[in-house]
């Protein structure tokens, strides 16, 4: 196993995240989305990606964070999963960082709930913490109808 890996980084609110760059297919700006009524609130809609219909998942909602302000347009990180391409909606895209395994730590104790399930660990950077997401788990939604409905 290589000592270093590359992460595609992005922000959600004031938190800094990264996911395995090898899973990232492309990054595109906010797209026209078709809403899916009655779907899990985390699914914001469907986008047309060069003829493929891709489901867009709002990462803020997925991590139980408050919605981004409406004037802020999200960015799409399109990832490859077992079930085809899925788009993750994030606030801003960051650089591709090289991180070394030695800096990897288990998830902080302060993380609770959904975030704890989806975060593999963290890298301590110079000035902040970089949380690493488990891509497959992130795009797997269970019990879609048991969650409370959020108002749009």
């Amino acid at each position, binding site marked *: 196993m290589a000592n270093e890996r590359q992460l595609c980084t992005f922000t959600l609110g004031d938190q800094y995240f990264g996911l395995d760059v090898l899973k990232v297919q492309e990054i595109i700006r906010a797209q026209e989305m*078709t809403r899916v009524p009655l779907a899990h609130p985390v699914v914001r809609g469907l986008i047309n990606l060069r*003829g493929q219909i891709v489901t867009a998942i709002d990462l803020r909602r997925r991590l139980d964070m408050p919605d981004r302000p409406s004037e802020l347009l999200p960015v799409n990180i399109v990832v490859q999963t077992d079930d085809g391409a899925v788009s993750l909606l994030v606030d801003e895209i960051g650089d591709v960082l090289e991180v070394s395994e030695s800096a990897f730590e288990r998830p902080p104790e302060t993380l609770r709930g959904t975030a704890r399930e989806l975060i593999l660990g963290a890298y301590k950077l110079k000035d902040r913490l970089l949380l690493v997401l488990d891509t497959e788990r992130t795009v797997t939604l269970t019990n879609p109808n048991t969650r409370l409905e959020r108002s749009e």
Partner: protein
Amino acid sequence: MNEVTREFLLETHENLGQLEGDLIALEKDPTEKQTLARVFRNLHTVKGSAGFLGLAKLQAVAHSAESLLSRLRDGELTFNPPIATALLQTIDSIRQVLASVESEAGEGSGNYSNLVRELDRLRETGGTAETPAVVARTMVAPIEPVPLTSAAITSPGPGTSFVQEATEPRAQSVSDSSIRVDVGLLDKLMNLVGELVLARNQIMQFSSSQENAAFLGTVQRLNLLTTELQANVMKTRMQPIGNIWSKFPRVVRDLALACGKQVRIDMEGQETELDKTIIEAIRDPLTHMVRNAVDHGIESPSTRLERGKLAEGRLSLHAFHEGGKVIIEINDDGGGIDPIRVRDKAIKVKAISPEEAVRMNERELVNLVFLPGFSTTEKVTHFSGRGVGMDVVRTNIERIGGSVELESQPGLGTTVKMKIPLTLAIIPALTVTSGGERYAIPQVSLLELVRLEGDQVKQRIESIHGFPVYRLRGNLLPLVYLNKELRTGDIRSAESEINIVVLHADDRQFGLVVDAIHDTEEIVVKPLQKQLKGVNVFAGATIMGDGRVALILDVLGIAQRANVVTGARVRALTEQNAQTSDASSNAKQSLLLFSIRDGGRMAIPLSIVARLEEFPFGSLERTGDQFVVQYRGEILPLVDVARQLNAEGGRAEGIPLASDTVQVVVYAGSERQVGLIVGSILDIVDEEIIATSRSSRSGVLHSAIVQGRVAEFLDVEGLVSRAS
């Protein structure tokens, strides 16, 4: 695996299929010389190839079978059940060996010496009655019942084991004009065509704003080519249903033998074609129903004789195309399903309440067997398993957009009727708007479109037990407001217009209220990803001509969500209907009442009336002997009712009197529309037809009391065909 082995596997599997069918046929008609010769040749070929590839066990088995067949072919022995059983088990053994070879494990560890011994013994003695049981136990394991679970029926991946799916030659002789193609390649082709259709749709949209003639001509050509390409690629994926059915004679034979019953299987429509993915999806449900019929449906020979039936039961399979779907009927002349027993069982397992049960008719009761966990057989047999079958069967059929229903007559038999769509990938759909979004509705579920404006909105929409309904030609149609079901809006009470899309799901009809209705077009169905799998109101998504994504409605899903297929709504409706209709068996009919020029009062069923129109007299034109009028861009032929009726009676009448306007009832005939010139429209009524008297003159079907006065019922079709 090398090429030679691969070829061997493919060819031998094909031969085995043919062999099996031939053996079953021989059992019924042992003297069929050609079949016997073919069986011999087939086994001879298998023996030869086995020897060439060094498969000693296979060679030994094939050799013994071939020797037995040699004596049969030469007329020294007669084909009988023990011989048939042994030979069929030979085929099973060969299949075992092939499976082992395919998984690169050589010939496998099976021991076939018992089989070889039996074949040799039969060759010597011709077979006596008492051996088959012994043979059955010591040889290849008895046919295991297929456990039918939802998981077992998944959409097939591309390029699944080709050894199982070798296409069988349709004609008896191998034809040179066909070619073997890998299934994965066909799937790829289908996908590409789908993409092409999308791109074509987008180009068509752009081109509507272009004026360059050369460009438009090319676009048109592209359009035609794409349509034809699509049709032909879809054809490549079509397979005859006989491919699955071919296994059934063997299944039925073995099962009947094991149950101690006699069953004959008739198959009609084997050449009916379905898309490959659909064939895969119905394979297991069909097998299950066939097994059910033999195991539970058809009675033992002694019971049958007691009931005055032939000892041999009959199971018939019938497949045909109808209305854009494939219909498959499985009928047995067995004991049928007793609705009372089903009802009692359903109440016992609390699937329905006694009050609900009382309101159900026989058909509804019988169809309760589709409920989960249902089985009225006291004995759970080894062969068909528990009663988990029917509900899983229905789920799997509905998953591919089909439907399944039971009909039964106690003591006489049962019929299972399945309706399956022809293809899944590219379908015609109607686009609608609701709550600011566009949706596509598959045309196959669409019955008609209704638009209500102004006052009609308040008048025609009634409310029964709190559910809105619309009276469509006398029938109460439950209304479902799409906005409300999808929670994208509310029912607004002060509407000036309502658009209703009349849909059918699971044999029930309902009206879907939407904001606006657009065009019908061909769309490519893309499945929803797993994050959306739980949303059962959508069947998939598509990309429209303008590049935006639109969701495809799952009609059955919406109906279930809105409770219009079972439950509250329907109960409320049937209650209402029960209250408003009389005890007499005559149903109310919606009638159009009108008068004709000589004062006669006439009626026709409202269901055949397309529209009521009024034309200024001057707009009538004459072609030869007939009047016509220009109507909606076409020429509408007119029939002067009074003149036609009187022409029969001999009283000549001239052209219609020149009044200002002419009342015309537009009748939608079987080939085209025809306008009936009448005097004046009187009323539209719902009336029970009683006290009819026979026809008074030609052109009239009969007379009856309508609204207290006599009216003659016009023979519209007769009149129209006489006039033209």
